[in-house]
Structure formats: C-alpha cells, structure tokens
C-alpha cells in the first residue's frame, strides 16, 4: 500500500460523499415533484428548468438562516446530535459495491470503498448508530415535542431492528458469505427477492421505519409533535437532519437493491463494467419512487401499533423465513 492508494481512496470517498449529497438534494426535488403529481399539483418548477435548481436555492436559503440554540438546551449535545446522525448515514454506503472495477487513467479502480468480509454486520451496526443522534437531538433540545420524538425513535428502533437484522440473514444463507460483493455475485442469475420474498418485504418495511419515512415517521410526526426531534433545529443543523434522512433513504435503497435485487448485476455487466453503477442507480431510483409513493398514500401508523406489528408480525415472519430458508438450503445443496 502506498500514498497513491491512500489518495485514490480519499478521492473516491470525496466523490462518493459528493454524490450522496447531490443525490440527497435531487431526491428532495424528486420527492416534491412526484408528490405534487400524485396530488394533482405541479410542484416546484420555477427555479431552473423543471425546478432543477430548486435544491441549490434551498441550500443557499438554509445557509443564510439564523441558527438558534434554545436557552435551555444542552449546547454540546445539541450541536453534536446532527453530526452523529449524518455520519452513519454517509458511511453505510462504504461497503456497497457499484460494480466490479473499471480502468481509469491506467489504474484498476474498484467500484466500492471497501470490500470487507463482514459487510452485512457493518451495515447493521452502522445503521443503528444514527438513532443515537435522533434521541440525543430530542433530549438535548429540552423541548417536550422533541423529547417525545427522540423517545419514539428509540421505541421505533427496538420494534423493527430485529426483523431488519433477520431479514438479511436469508441472503447471507443463500450466498454463504457476509461479504456484500459475494452476495451480489451470488445473484448473477436470480435476484434474491425472488428466492426470499418474505425477507424482502420485511426488509422493505423495516427500512421504512429505520429511515423514519411514512407511514412510520413517528419521531417527526408533524400532526402531533409539530416537528418531533428537530423542532428546535434551524438553519444548517436542521438541514443536516434532513440530509441524514434522505441520504439514509438512498443508502437503504442501495443496500436493499444490493441484497435483494442483484445490486449492480444486469445484462452485459461482465462485458461493460461501467454499466454496473447505471443498473444500481436505476434500481435505487425505482426503490425511492416506491418510498415516495407510499408517503403520498398511507396514513401514519400509531406507535404502539408499530411495536405490535414489529414484534407480533414482522419478527416471527423473519424468524420463520430464516428457518425455512435454512431447511430448503439443506435440502437443495447438502450432500
């Protein structure tokens, strides 16, 4: 390993981070436009063509907003909380492969940040960190709505986390590895969503809760908690929460596409490796569209009902899914 390698990775990291940030900006636009269309409205279309400059205008506006820190707040935690929320959202994507590798400037560049052997465990570990950020934000604001939001996010976490973890055991069983790259390669012929429909659905629902999206957006339930955990946040710190939510939305869509929809796999990827990122991108967009669609459609579930759903429906299903998958794998592959 030399300095050049390190630079390569630094550049790759910056590239990925910029990509995720840009992705965040344009997912907000996509969401607003799609929601508007679904609601017989037009949506933002004034800033730039099709409103394409809207996210930039929003960012500029947010930067110039006054930052308020409530007098009663725990200042340090109040500032740290958005950072804690946004970093895990960013670094989950580190283990997602975008393709095998491409040749650029005479170097063989792997299309992922890292190819670790316990990738899935890494994903699981990192995703649960961001709940700390939310809980801390809610607590440190010293605001009642925020505190409710923060506490709800913990409640939410303990109701879907188990099902989420178990839903990923299926692909691991089928691929025989926790390495994300191996899992993608194992889906060369058939995406795991077809082999693991129950796991796929449980994953999808659990991640909706994970990213606090409708119908599981209890921590920021506007109707009762005004804005939930980020009630007191303004300006850039608010934007960071917003960013974390959308980046996480993209990240779980990427993970989901990788684990269940074959990741960057698609026709002719072997011949043309640059197609890999395109396929992954397409799958992610479809996934995000479904997320937005659900937001436009479903009422919010109440959080005791979510707990019941998580524990009494999703967890048993996920457990049975692992059980049945295990037996089927034994029957089909064991000597």
């Amino acid at each position, binding site marked *: 390993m030399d300095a050049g390698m390190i630079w390569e990775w630094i550049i790759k990291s910056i590239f990925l981070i910029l990509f995720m940030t840009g992705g965040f900006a344009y997912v907000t636009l996509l969401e607003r436009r799609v929601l508007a269309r679904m*609601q017989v409205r037009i949506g933002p279309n004034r800033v730039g063509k099709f409103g394409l400059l809207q996210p930039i205008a929003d960012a500029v506006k947010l930067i110039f907003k006054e930052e308020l820190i409530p007098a009663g707040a725990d200042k340090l935690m109040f500032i740290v909380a958005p950072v804690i929320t946004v970093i895990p959202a960013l670094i989950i994507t580190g283990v997602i492969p975008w393709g095998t590798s491409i040749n650029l400037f005479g170097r063989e560049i792997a299309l992922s940040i890292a190819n670790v052997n316990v990738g899935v465990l890494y994903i699981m570990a990192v995703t649960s960190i961001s709940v700390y950020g939310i809980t801390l934000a809610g607590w440190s604001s010293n605001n009642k709505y925020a505190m409710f939001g923060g506490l709800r996010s913990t409640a939410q976490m303990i109701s879907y986390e188990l099902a989420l973890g178990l839903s990923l055991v299926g692909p691991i069983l089928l691929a025989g590895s926790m390495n994300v790259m191996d899992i993608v390669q194992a889906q060369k012929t058939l995406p795991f969503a077809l082999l693991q429909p129950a796991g796929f659905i449980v994953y999808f629902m659990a991640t909706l809760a994970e990213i606090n999206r*409708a*119908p599981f957006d209890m921590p920021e*339930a506007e*109707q009762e908690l005004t804005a939930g955990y980020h009630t007191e946040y303004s300006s850039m710190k608010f934007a960071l929460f917003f960013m974390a939510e959308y980046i996480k939305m993209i990240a779980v869509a990427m993970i989901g596409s990788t684990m269940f929809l074959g990741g960057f796999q698609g026709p002719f990827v072997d011949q043309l490796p640059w197609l890999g990122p395109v396929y992954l991108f397409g799958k992610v967009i479809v996934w995000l569209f479904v997320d937005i669609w659900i937001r436009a459609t*479903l*009422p919010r579930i*109440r959080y005791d009902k979510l707990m019941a759903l998580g524990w009494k429906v999703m967890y048993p299903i996920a457990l049975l899914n692992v059980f049945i998958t295990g037996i089927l794998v034994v029957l089909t592959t064991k000597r």
Partner: protein
Amino acid sequence: MTEATLINPLDTLVDQFPSGWVKKDERPGYSGFIVEREHLLEFARTMRDDFGFDYLSMVTASDYLAEGKFDVVYYAYKTIGGPALIFKVQVPREDAVVPSLVALYPGADFQEREVWDLMGIRFEGHPDLRRILMWEGFEGHPLRKDWKEPFYEEDVKPYKSRWPEGKPVNADDRNPFNDNVQYPTGFDPERWVPEAETLLYSGLQRTTHNEEFKTDELIVNMGPQHPSTHGVFRMVVSLQGEKIVDLKPVMGYLHRNHEKIAERNTFLQNMPFTDRLDYTTSMSNNFAYALAVEKLMGLQVPERADYIRVLMAELTRIMNHFFATGFLLNDLGVYFTASLYAIEERELILDIFEEISGSRMMCNYFRFGGVVRDVSDEVLKKIHNLVYDRIPRKLDQFDAYLTNNEILRTRCEGVGVLTADQAIALSTAGPILRASGVPYDVRRADPYSIYDRLEFDVITGNHGDIYDRYLVRVAEIKESIKIVKQLLRDIPSGPILAGKPAYQVRVPAGESYGRVEGPKGEMGFYIVSNGKPNPERYHVRAPTFINLTSLAPMSRGEKVADVVVILGAIDIVLGEVDR
C-alpha cells in the same frame, strides 16, 4: 314518563307545577316558560327525567338594561324529535347568579362559561367557571349593554357619516383610544404577569401513582401555534408517557365578539356577517339566520326560493364533509394526498357558489324571504352533472381507497368513543351525535323549509368512534346527493323573494330561534328584536363550539397521536368556535 306527557306536555306544563314558580312567558312575541331561579334545578331535572327533554341545545342570556335584569335562556329538545322546550330564568342585573345546569346537562359547560364570560352571570355550582373566550383578567363583560369597546362610536349602525360635507373624518380622532379602555383596579400593563395559566394548569387531573416505577407527568401545550389544531386553538394536555390523563381546550384566540358587533349592525347587515362564522359553510349559516328573522317577521318564503335554499344547503354539506374527511386523513398523517383529492369536488361546488352569489366562500346569498339571485338553468345543469357524475365517482374512490384501508381502520376504530348517552348529555350535534347512534337530525326532528317533502335517511353509526364519524360523513354525502337529485327534479319556477328587496327590514318585537342542521351540527340563531332596525340580542349556537365540550371526555386515556385525530373528527372551524 306517562303517555300524556309524551303527547302534549307543554300546554299543561304550568299545571304540573302548581306552586306557581313556573309561569308562561307572556310578553308579546315571546314564548316558553319563566322559572324562578331557586327552582331551576328541580324544574330542569323534572323536564329531563320525566318529560324526556334530554338534550340541552342552547344556553344563552340577554341583557334587558331598561328593565334591569338578565334573561338566561335555555332551549331543550327531545332527541326523539319535536319542538323546543324554552325556559328562562330572570335575574336582577346586580345579583346575576343562576344555578348551574352542568350536573344535569354536561353540555352546558362551555355555554355557561361563555355566558359568564360575556354577560357576567355567575353560575353557581359550575365546576370550572373560568372565562372562555376572553382572557382571564379581562375587565368587564362585553355583551352587557352598558359595556363599550375602546373604539366605541355609537350604539347602533348606521353610524354618523365619516365624511360629513365631503370631508373625511378619522374615526380614531373622534374616539381616542383611551376613552373606553378599562383596566381592572390596580392593573399595570407593564408589570402584568399572567396568572390565569397557573389556574388552568392546576385544574388538570393527575394520575394516582400506584405503578412499579414513579414517573412524572408532563404538561404539554398543543397549540395555539400548532400544525394540526385547525387554526389557533390550544389544548393543554397532561401526559403520562404518551397517554393522556387530562385535556383542557383553550379557545378565544380568534374572538372578535361577533355577537356584540352583530347587535350594532342592522338585521340585513348581519347576513354577510354570518358568513364569517364558519367560513366553509356560509350558506348554512345564512339559512339559519334567515329562518330566525323570518320567524319574527312572519314571512312566507316562495317555493322556488325554498328549493334553492335547500339545494345550496345540501351542496354546502357535501362540500363540508369532503373537506372534513380529507383533512381528517391529514390529521392521520397522510401527506395531503387524500385531502387534496377530497377538495377537488369542493372546488367545483365553490365555482357554482361563485356563479350564483358572486363569491366562493363568503356567499351572502340568502335574504329575508328568499334568496338574492335566481339560479340559471346552466347552473342547474352543472349541479346535475356534479351529483350524477363527479361526486358519486369521488365517493367510489373514497370507498375503494379509504374505507377499508388497514391503517385508517386501526387508527380510527375504537378511538375517541362517545356513547349515545354521553353524546346526548354533552349536547354534541351533527355527525358526532349521529355516529354515536342517536338518529337526531334537525331536518327530521324539527323539519324546516321543505325538508318534510324530501326523502332521505338519517345516517347513524353504531360505535361512536372516529371511524363511524368518517362513515357517517361519507354516507351523508350520499344522502345529500339524493336530496339534490330530488330538488333538481322538482324545482318549480316562480319568484325567489317574498315582497320587495329592502335594505331595512321591519322586524316586530319578540324573540325567535332559527335552527338548521348545518354540516357540523345544529346551527342556530337566537334573535331578540325590540322593533328597532337592529337586533336587541343576537346569539349564535355554534355547533363546533359546543361539540368541543366532548373533546376532553373523548381524549382521556387515549394516546397523544389520537387527540389530533379526535379533534379532526369533530371538524371544528375556529371562526365559529371563537366568534
């Protein structure tokens, strides 16, 4: 209850109380009974328990300054239908104390507080007699005839010209601000500390701690600046975890003393003013006010006008119920989609209103003795298209996407339950009352206009929960469509206004109460005229204000998330609540 009292109780009522403390009200133009205040409770209990007047619809008071007394007026009904039982208590102005009826009719709670607040009549035995629309610490009782507002000009309109001889005069110069400003004794605006809040907070119920862990209660203000209180409305909630221990609604942020202003106005000037009450259902408000005044004037409305009136009232109902269900979904957390789809048809109805009255929301369409403009055949055709095509299609969409939606059902079923007895006792009206299984609809219970010729069903629910309120509203849209179809079929041609249009109407002295089944419940106007061009007393029975009495009983024991939905299912409009 004997059969005799069921059939014709009111004529012989005075004989039932031989000791003489119940008298017929024999002032010209007045009706009902005058009860001595010492016996009010006894009388009310007899009426409720033995005569079946279980529904206390309205409590108000009027100030007879010249005679030096207040009349406290009660309107009670039977939920099986029939005319009102009107009883009054007369008290001298200097000793304005009346026994409270809250113990008998919990629905009197807010209304008695309102009378105390605006009229200054104390209700002895009321559990929580605080001001309700004005703030605690306000000096005076604004509906009293001798109370004057800071910019008081004259007692009644029309005021003196503001540009005498062509020169404008600034009203502020005529009435400097300080002239009528009243402060309590010892009040210093600079050093004022709101004490009323502590009174409010300490009034909340607490839980008794008998659980494993000792946990604290949290008092949270939901509102006035809250995204889902449908306006500036405030609920003070005490919470144990996410469970609601007690709730107190606080209102009056939008209070403008509608009734005082209306008493300064002339009779006709009040017609557009009623639009501003519940600004989503101006036609129904007009309707009730027109009925009240017409009763006093003894006007007969031409048939075509009656048809048009009912047509507009039913379109208003359709519109309002779409609005209510759409925004109920919003309160449940659907991000606007359902509400925007729901108000698509509302827009078309508003187009029709605009075409006939010139305004989409503040219609000011009714006149005493009819309506102001005729409805053209084109508009009728448009309405025809709406009720035969667009609205049924929208209702089918509702059924397909909402009625059996899993999340909607789990969030709404069994939440905010009000039993039939509670609903009656709390004087709720409209869809809330009917969702609790009480088939009480003014259109049937006490038919007005041409409703007795129309065929429609009174929709009731079985469980009295939010889901039933939703179902009742949707079904009521269907019934309204049925009514509109009949109206379109039968509408006669002819005049639309009795007599000549006039700016100044002559209203004989007396009292009257006109009520209609508004979309949100019984909308009523209590009018007292003294023969002059301005009403002596003008009181609005605001359905959502009274329906809010049921908010706290419905919310106790539910979760925070449910309160918003419970409030949404009451379907309040703050313009009417705060008046």
